[in-house]
């Protein structure tokens, strides 16, 4: 079918890759500027996150954690994007994005408390610039937009970043937030971690758009697509988007193509909608294996290092789950007092039932 001269033209986009699945640099020009120490730290965090994920799934099965959305496979998109930020940038996560806010400063035991349904999980330390994970898909996109508006009005060189999945890109709030950012030229980064599925629904059932990144066109902001299993591409893309934001050049939508090796949640069965072949194909793109190959060639990482980080991560998880379990139990009266700055009379009276 031929295109009409007055029809909006779009072309398919080629995702940015820096590191091949074999661990070779394939795009030298887009290589982020990172020291050997930084490269090792990124690897450390990805291995740590994978181990934490494995332990969290087990702790969930043992009933020691509650709500938990697995992250294995998305370490590059999560760890890398957070690593590219400054500490005073603000993170508005979705429900799967616990690694970003933990690496941004939320103590791990509080992440576990959030999972267990304890209010202290959301009591973010004063010097940590994150919100607790958002359950209403899309709502966090508007919060990041408002935070970015505040940064812009205060003249601060800070950016807000927010995350959703491929399914979330069908929400009205996703579009509204990007559109506001386009109008007000806000310093905000919208990350879509496209792992191919929204629970059981494949990406092809979310949109007929050529890519999620194309949706930036409708908001008048920059849209890019990257290999979300490639931590170097992730870091480069987020660094650039953050710089644009800080320089007053506005918002960026970054679609990160990724995969979750585990189910959507603990209650999900992937065998009903995914094939073994598909899973095997993505395992070849594993962000950790790929980055390890790169570092090993540079003499910066060995298998022993991986083993050591895994042990460290297990010990840290154990320590923090214990701390979470030992946290003082909540009371209904405590909840009542946390509703408002000053508890109104009717709520004060309702405490009598729970003395």
């Amino acid at each position, binding site marked *: 079918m031929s295109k009409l001269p007055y029809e909006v033209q779009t072309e398919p986009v080629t995702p940015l890759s820096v590191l091949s699945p074999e661990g070779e640099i394939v795009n030298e020009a887009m290589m982020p500027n990172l020291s050997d120490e930084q490269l090792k730290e990124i690897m450390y965090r990805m291995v740590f996150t994978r181990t934490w994920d494995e332990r969290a799934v087990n702790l969930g099965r043992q009933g020691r954690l509650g709500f938990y959305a697995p992250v294995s496979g998305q370490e590059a998109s999560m760890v890398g994007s957070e690593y590219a930020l400054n500490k005073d940038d603000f993170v508005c996560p979705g429900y799967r994005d616990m690694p970003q806010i933990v690496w941004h400063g939320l103590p791990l035991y509080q992440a576990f408390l959030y999972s267990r349904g304890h209010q202290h999980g959301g*009591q973010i330390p004063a010097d940590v610039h994150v919100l607790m994970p958002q359950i209403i898909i899309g709502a966090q996109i*508007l919060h990041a937009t*408002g935070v970015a508006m505040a940064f812009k*009005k*205060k003249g601060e060189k800070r950016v807000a970043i927010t995350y959703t999945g491929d399914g979330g890109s069908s929400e009205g709030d996703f579009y*509204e937030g990007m559109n*506001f950012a386009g109008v007000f030229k806000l310093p905000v980064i919208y990350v879509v971690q496209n792992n191919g599925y929204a629970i059981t629904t494949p990406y092809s059932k979310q949109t007929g758009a050529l890519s999620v990144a194309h949706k930036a066109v409708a908001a008048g902001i920059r849209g890019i697509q990257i290999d979300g299993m490639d931590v170097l591409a992730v870091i480069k893309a987020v660094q650039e988007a953050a710089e644009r934001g800080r320089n007053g050049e506005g918002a960026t939508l970054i679609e990160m193509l990724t995969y979750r090796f585990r189910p959507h949640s603990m209650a999900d069965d992937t065998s009903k909608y995914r094939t073994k072949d598909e899973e095997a194909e993505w395992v070849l793109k594993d962000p950790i294996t790929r980055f390890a190959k790169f570092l090993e060639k540079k003499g910066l990482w060995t298998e022993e290092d991986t083993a050591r980080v895994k042990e460290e991560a297990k010990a840290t998880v154990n320590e923090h789950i214990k701390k979470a379990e030992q946290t003082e139990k909540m009371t209904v009266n405590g909840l009542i007092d946390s509703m408002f700055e000053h508890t109104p*009379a*009717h709520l004060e009276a309702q405490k009598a039932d729970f003395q």
Partner: protein
Amino acid sequence: MAQMNMKEAIRDAMRVELKNDPNVYVFGEDVGKVGGVFRATEGLQGEFGEDRVFDTPLAESAIAGMAVGMGLQGFRPVAEIQFVGFIYEAMDQMFIQAARMRYRSGGRYNSPIVFRTPFGGGVKAAELHTDSLEGLAIQTPGIKVIVPSNPYDAKGLLVAAIRDNDPVFFMEHLNLYHAFRQDVPEEAYTIEIGKANVVREGSDVTIIAYGLMVHTAVKAAEELEKSGVKAEVIDLRTLLPLDIETIVTSIKKTNRAIVVQEAQKTSGAAAEIIAQINENAILHLEAPVLRVAGPDTVYPFAQVEDAWLPNPARIVKAVNQVMNF
């Protein structure tokens, strides 16, 4: 003192707070350059600049959600939703995100936001401009709900709402914007949120109302006076939290009460007020507490609005029922 109608008093509240607090920002659809579809923000952009008072794209959810995000950074947004029927678009951000922020974060964050919206019948407006949706708001834990009935209260309550560190849903009755003028102090002052006002004293029956219905109730009370029934009229001013103390004090004196609401009958504010009267004053009642409300239909077509809305005659009839119970 200056003579102001309610719209001017509301504008003056925003003006004094924009002046007093650099963190106050006013925004919404058409609130900037032209000063709002009802001119409630007229002149504010001229006085305080486009940075503080600005127009937004046409998207209620983003207006409310942006307010939540700005609130996280210490700003005090006053966000306008152009007409009440459009709050459905913004309900997640108003009633879930803003209302739960303090609780979800254990006090780390809060939402010091005022969501202003016009509502209220009797002006022959188009669909979904005038519905009384306070019932949706009052079952939302974490938000406060204010419905002023006169210029003096509107300014004092809006200043208090802007200064409140928790979210407030501020409902402005369309039929009261230009209804009458009153002496209003030019400086900032506050009226305590959660305090009702006895606007007419009486000893035989208590009529509880809010918004336009306060004035309808006073008209009914004047009618009743002619037949020797002395009605006390309470203007609730705040629906959440409810001033049950003022209501109970009045009922202890009158032993009879009715509640008047413009909204349809089922599960509205009146139902909650009656439940609280039952819990707190049952032994002082000589008759059941009746409701005067709209019927349980969708808000009426403009042509039948006057017949649909509660009027003094229906209030008089309800009072006579409780008097003769």
